[in-house]
């Protein structure tokens, strides 16, 4: 009897270990409060969804976001993407304030770039799948190399965060605007000439 009880306890402990591991691995997949699920609403927008706006003199109390520990000097916006709709293009114009873009998948951030990587004041980040990347490379004009920063995403769904730092309180309104000024658009094949061989190029 004692042996059986000992055996049952041992089985229970092993089972507890399995349940523990499965639960920890399942939390990011099942959670509906994680950043990716909450950012989904921004998918239809062509500019970032405002996650954390800085308080300014006109609007001293910013709306409480769901971000647990925001930096009170950094305005934050997100653009969610679904690469099934096409490659995601995030275009930012750099200004006086420091700006950073980070691409997140479900597993975490896979790429980040700051405004120091900008070419002539413009930062173009294109997130695509492996096949979309190959297609873009094949269609590239050798005489006109693209200035886009092309990143192959590990998953089809994810989001891009836009962070703009307001170094001084007087720059907060500008930081909020700078986040909104970033454009997040889907690169549809018809917009780029000669992207799809079957289709007529659009001039």
């Amino acid at each position, binding site marked *: *009897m*004692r042996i*059986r*009880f*000992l*055996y*049952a*306890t041992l*089985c*229970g*402990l092993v*089972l*507890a*270990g*399995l*349940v*523990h591991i*499965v*639960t*920890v*691995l399942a*939390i*990011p997949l099942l*959670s509906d*409060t*994680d*950043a990716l699920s*909450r950012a989904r609403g921004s998918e239809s927008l062509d500019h970032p969804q405002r*996650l954390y706006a800085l*308080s300014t003199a006109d609007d001293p*109390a910013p709306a409480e976001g*769901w*971000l*647990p*520990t925001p*930096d*009170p*000097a*950094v305005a*934050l916006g*997100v653009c969610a993407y679904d690469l099934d709709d096409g490659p995601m293009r995030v275009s930012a114009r750099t200004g006086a304030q*420091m700006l*950073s873009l*980070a691409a*997140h998948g479900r*597993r*975490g*951030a*896979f*790429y*980040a770039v*700051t405004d*120091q990587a900008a070419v002539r004041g413009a930062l173009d980040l294109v997130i695509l799948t492996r096949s979309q990347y190959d297609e873009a490379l094949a269609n590239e004009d050798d005489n006109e190399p693209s200035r886009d920063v092309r990143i192959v995403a*590990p998953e089809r769904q994810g989001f891009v*965060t836009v*962070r703009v*730092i307001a*170094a*001084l*309180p007087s720059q907060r309104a500008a930081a909020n605007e700078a986040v909104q000024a970033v454009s997040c658009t889907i690169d549809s094949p018809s917009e780029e000439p000669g992207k799809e061989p079957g289709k007529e190029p659009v001039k």
Partner: protein
Amino acid sequence: MTSLAERQPGGPRAQAGAAGLGGRAAGAVRDFLRKTSRVGLVLYALGLGAGLGLVSADWATRGRYPFGGVTVGPWTAWPRAGAANADPYARAVNARRGEIPLAVGEGLLLSATTDDEGRALEAGCSYSIAGHTPPARAWTLTVTGRGAAEPGRPALRGGFTSTEILRERDGRFVIALAPGARPGNWLPAPGTSGPIRLALRLYDTPVAAGTGSLDRETLPAITRLGCGA
């Protein structure tokens, strides 16, 4: 065997010293085992597994990241918490909190909940946060309390950025974290009592790629100056 018997759910928790109670518990377990069938033991194993597994998973993914922390003095950083190769626990913590951690190329978050001597930071005490920061294009140092802000409390400064801080002649800075106003860089405590937390966010910093260059000299020291009014 006694220790296993004590783990029996529902059974009285016998203290080592209380022999009478322990004996009675062992007797109850022996009775239970004699009466119970194989089904009972299977149910017991399943219940133990599910209960212990869920509770331990909840405990491990609540609050701070359990693994991968780099501690330098009072400051702790989790450089891989936002990366694609973050450990499953960090990913679960992020998912539960809805946190968007800084990516490795973006910056690094260092947080402190104690002073240099290891005493917990209290909103009622005053501290000096002095020294240098690791190289970064910009940094912010913020203080947060636990829970929601007190209603009716005027929104005061929540932190300093590297641009707005007043520096000494040698480039050092001294921040006075105190409930009452101080000269110089005064950082108001976020409440009147309770634990507080300091967050030093370094943006666009080479430190994020390799935290080996962090040491106590490069991070601000947190010294408690006194408590109470």
